[in-house]
């Protein structure tokens, strides 16, 4: 039976045990958000993602904006400028047309904001009860316009790790909307396209080594994956990680750790230490209500683990989370 939904260890196991052995080829990198390959003189990035989020509409976004932004961001994390998207819709019989209309309008707005065109698509309708109103798959192609290799393999000791903004808003927004939780303020998803921000890092000549967006599994899972893949240790400082007051409050109530919460508009960048300040300034020029910070660095130790210096100054390891975080009792 499948129980692999949370984006943690279980999903990781599923990919490694089932998909990798079946499809193995030189281009596939399971630890990356997309594939990068050459066509003629051009280097392209190609990625796909499916969206099954519940509820369909949540504060700060909906399944439509998410399906465009998520795929655009995956291309951006390959170091590419997104060009074209496809969209596949699986609709459950009986879904309200008005909802579909709103979702499609939201996809259009998100595509415009990210500077991509939706150029091909497909629609299937399944019997009532066989779907959950709507599932969307999008795939995207982007072009790489620099000579850098954006990958955990490019990570070097001494690299600064830049976090692009505060953590956890998307995860809490979805949880609150899904479970009908009411907080004093409405926490909106951080869902936002990252391609322009990332493009600007390259435009400023910053030697970016690795990029990763912090979707399911959050900051902790991203760091653990990159540490494992690069072979180098990563040390971060908890105090430097920004979590908004309302998100912090929600986490305290629910027993969640913000480092594991999903985000849809946040990423980490590994850059040479000397370029950290410039990278932070470039990212901040694109941010409206949050700011980037260096949260740690890559060490020369080669155990491939992640440690965090806690708020009271002790050190502990950061591990990938297994399954979904479940709200605790008290």
């Amino acid at each position, binding site marked *: 039976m499948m129980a692999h939904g949370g984006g943690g260890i279980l999903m990781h196991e599923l990919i490694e045990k089932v998909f990798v052995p079946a499809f193995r080829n030189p281009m596939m990198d399971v630890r990356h958000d997309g594939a990068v390959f050459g066509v003629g003189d051009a280097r392209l990035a190609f990625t796909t993602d499916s969206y099954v989020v519940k509820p369909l509409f949540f504060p700060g976004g909906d399944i439509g904006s998410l399906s465009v932004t998520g795929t655009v961001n995956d291309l951006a994390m390959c170091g590419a400028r997104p060009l074209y998207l496809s969209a596949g819709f699986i609709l459950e019989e009986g879904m309200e047309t008005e909802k579909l209309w709103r979702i499609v309008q939201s996809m259009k707005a998100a595509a415009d904001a990210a500077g991509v065109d939706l150029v091909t698509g497909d629609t299937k309708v399944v019997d009532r009860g066989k779907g959950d109103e709507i599932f969307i798959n999008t795939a995207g192609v982007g072009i790489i316009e620099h000579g850098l290799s954006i990958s955990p393999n490019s990570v070097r000791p001494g690299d600064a790790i830049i976090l692009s903004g505060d953590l956890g808003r998307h995860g809490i927004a979805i949880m609150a909307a899904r479970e009908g939780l009411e907080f004093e303020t409405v926490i909106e998803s951080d869902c936002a396209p990252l391609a322009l921000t990332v493009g600007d890092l390259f435009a400023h000549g910053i030697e970016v080594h690795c990029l990763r967006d912090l979707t399911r599994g959050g900051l902790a899972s991203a760091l653990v994956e990159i540490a494992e893949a690069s072979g180098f240790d990563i040390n971060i400082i908890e105090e430097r990680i920004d979590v908004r*007051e309302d998100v*912090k409050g929600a986490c305290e109530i629910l027993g969640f750790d913000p480092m594991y919460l999903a985000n849809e508009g946040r990423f980490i960048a590994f850059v040479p230490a000397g370029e950290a300040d410039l990278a932070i300034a470039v990212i901040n020029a694109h941010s409206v209500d949050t700011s980037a910070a260096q949260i740690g660095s890559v060490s020369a130790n080669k155990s491939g683990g992640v440690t965090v210096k806690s*708020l009271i*100054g*002790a050190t502990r390891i950061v591990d990938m989370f297994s399954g979904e975080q479940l*709200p605790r*009792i008290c």
Partner: protein
Amino acid sequence: MKYVDEYRGAEEAARFCRAIERITTRDWTLMEVCGGQTHSIVKFGIDELLPDKITLVHGPGCPVCVTPLELIDKAIMIASGPKAIFCSFGDMLRVPGSEQDLLMVKANGGDVRIVYSPLDALKIALDNPRKEVVFFAIGFETTAPANAMAVYQAKKLGVRNFSLLVSHVLVPPAIEAVLSSPQNRVQAFLAAGHVCTVMGYTEYEPIAKKYHVPIVVTGFEPVDILQGIYMAIKQLEEGRCEVENQYARYVQREGNLPAKDLIEKVFRVVLRKWRGVGEIPESGLGLTDEYAEFDAEKRFALASYTAEEPAECISGLVLQGIKKPHDCPAFGTRCTPEHPFGATMVSNEGACAAYYRYRRHAARQQAA
């Protein structure tokens, strides 16, 4: 965040660490009773900052961990029924029963819902009059007032399709069970601040006296815990055995009187089985006769069902502070949060899960 950040400061923490270092002259073993405290200790690395002379052992205060296997099985039996809506706090869903867990029941189409308050479950009952809505009423004294309020309201409103599957446990009998065990090595306790917010701490005073142990009512933030440890060590070094209150910003000696009244109205003290520990007399709460109609075990005729726990799991010894998680040969290998043997590996507050999540590598080195 107000009321939290000021108890997570590095400077304040360091100040207490130095003070503890200064007054500690010999080896002492302390138990933090509550799973929430265990989680804080491991997450913030509090024990790493303490002198080697001080050993912290993790107590039985994780309600998810101590809920007996047969109650989980009963929950699964109820939740699998076609007419039931089974409501629970989130972290009960992954706790393994004899054959499956509530998440699997949900995956197979059972109506299992995560709620944040028993009153939400009561609302579900009002909204679904043709369904039997059952709330999994687990927890220590902390959750008892809200659970009592749910049945109190249900009776007042004449709701017939709502019941509680009760597995409430109490802290003082658990402390006594630890103290009266021949293997006990605990010399002082950090009592659970949240429990005492409800109950106060008068019931700990006779225990401190009878067993000659200091008991310090302690909060959950790093600075709270360090201050609680400081107060306990100071008592030990001075040869005192009193009940002291570190968590005075929330806890009063008499507790929360309206909450206690409500608990007394709805619940009575009963014998309870604790997972990994066994039966402890007068260690839990059950519904009084007046509220017996809201007892899910009676409504679903499950009172006589029993189940045996797997022999390999040492969670009982971990819960009593006799063993550490990495003393178990299955820890981190055959028993992981994805495939847990016992509840201490499942719950966020379980000692095994906390060790697995924050210091698996360190624990392995220590064991090697």
